[in-house]
């Protein structure tokens, strides 16, 4: 694995993303529209549990949507080029890191719009931000591999959702629990173990994804 190659691959992803602004703008519109619809339909959310559940549901759908296209642009020719030039682990790591950054930014944006329209209930901001950050990085690890799998199987979007929702569930439950603690403003001594699990899951997910991608990549 080569670090400069990794750096350039990540840079390439960003350049491609910013060159084609329509997809990024599309995601932004998606976020605002979803949050706005939920704000309109719920009017006012009083209960923190519902606030939390709705936020993470929106978050999950956004992340699945964002990552589902991360392998879609790989045409036959491009895939062959990548296969000949890059080490598979470098390649998947570049995708994961790029998705991590993208999802962290998008989750912050979602939180911003959500607290703007629906109202903010979080008492412990530091804890909530940590939960957001670590869960978006773990999500990106899972979803990058799932989108690679879905791109190898023929029908993309529906399969992506079917494959990733059950696998995301353990992650999602831990982050929901952690962010509920943050909303209630519980002490760190109560919730540090969930944070620890989330960090541990990050390592597990990224390690597994890099290991298993080797085998997906061969045609």
């Amino acid at each position: 694995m080569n670090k400069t190659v990794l750096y350039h691959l990540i840079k390439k992803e960003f350049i491609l993303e910013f060159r084609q602004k329509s997809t990024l703008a599309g995601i932004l519109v998606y976020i605002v529209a979803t949050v706005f619809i939920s704000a309109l339909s719920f009017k006012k959310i009083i209960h923190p549990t519902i606030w939390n559940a709705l936020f993470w549901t929106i978050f999950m759908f956004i992340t699945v949507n964002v990552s589902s296209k991360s392998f879609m642009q790989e045409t036959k020719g491009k895939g062959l080029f990548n296969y000949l030039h890059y080490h598979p682990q470098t390649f998947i790591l570049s995708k994961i890191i790029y998705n991590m950054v993208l999802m962290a930014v998008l989750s912050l944006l979602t939180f911003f719009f959500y607290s703007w329209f629906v109202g903010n209930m979080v008492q412990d901001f530091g804890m909530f931000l940590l939960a957001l950050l670590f869960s978006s990085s773990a999500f990106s690890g899972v979803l990058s591999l799932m989108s690679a799998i879905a791109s190898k199987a023929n029908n993309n979007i529906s399969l992506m959702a079917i494959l990733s929702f059950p696998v995301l569930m353990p992650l999602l439950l831990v982050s929901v629990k952690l962010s509920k603690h943050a909303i209630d403003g519980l002490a760190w001594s109560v919730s540090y173990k969930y944070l620890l699990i989330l960090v541990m899951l990050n390592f597990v997910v990224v390690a597994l994804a890099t290991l298993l991608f080797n085998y997906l990549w061969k045609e």
Partner: protein
Amino acid sequence: MIKWWKILSALLILYTLIWGMLGPVPQLDILNETIRNVYYHVPIWFAMLFQMGYSVVYAVKQLSKNDLKTDIISHQAAQTGLFFSLPGLLTGSMWAKFTWGTWWTFQDPKLNGVAIAVLIYLAYFILRSSIDDEQKRARIGAVYNIFAFVMMFVFIMILPRLTDSLHPGNGGNPAFGKYDLDNNMRMIFYPAVIGWVLFSLWILNVKKRLAFLTYANNEI
């Protein structure tokens, strides 16, 4: 040809079915006579986990050896495991009704874990059916199988130990091993585990042979 372990599994299950109903059990509050479900509910889950573990081992073998036979075994084991989740859910649901007062509860991480495990394996079968090429299906299926098993393992084995659970051994509830399971029960519980695991292997054996034959038939 009849193998000895097939006879053993049938005898063990028969023994646990009969003696499990007749044998002495400790008289406990709430549980009362439903404690006998330990002989059926728990071993069936063990058989399911065993089959899913078997499936993952063969998925790893498939990735390292690239042999289609290992893929067939892995697929059949996953099917057998999913099949065992049905009686596991049924016995568990009945037990829950008579002890916790409800057929299903979302409060318990193990119940959620099982629901997710069933979803994961259904997704695995959908993934397999959407790929036509055999070699590709074997490889991609194995990748998803391994990844999904690890996530499921985290969910079923690690998370329940941290959160509150209604199941014994989690969240401050005493485990069976401590005092619920006395020596009389052990004499039935352990044979039941061995019997059901062997029985699941028997089912797998039949399914595997059938799948090999179908495969060979399709080849011609």
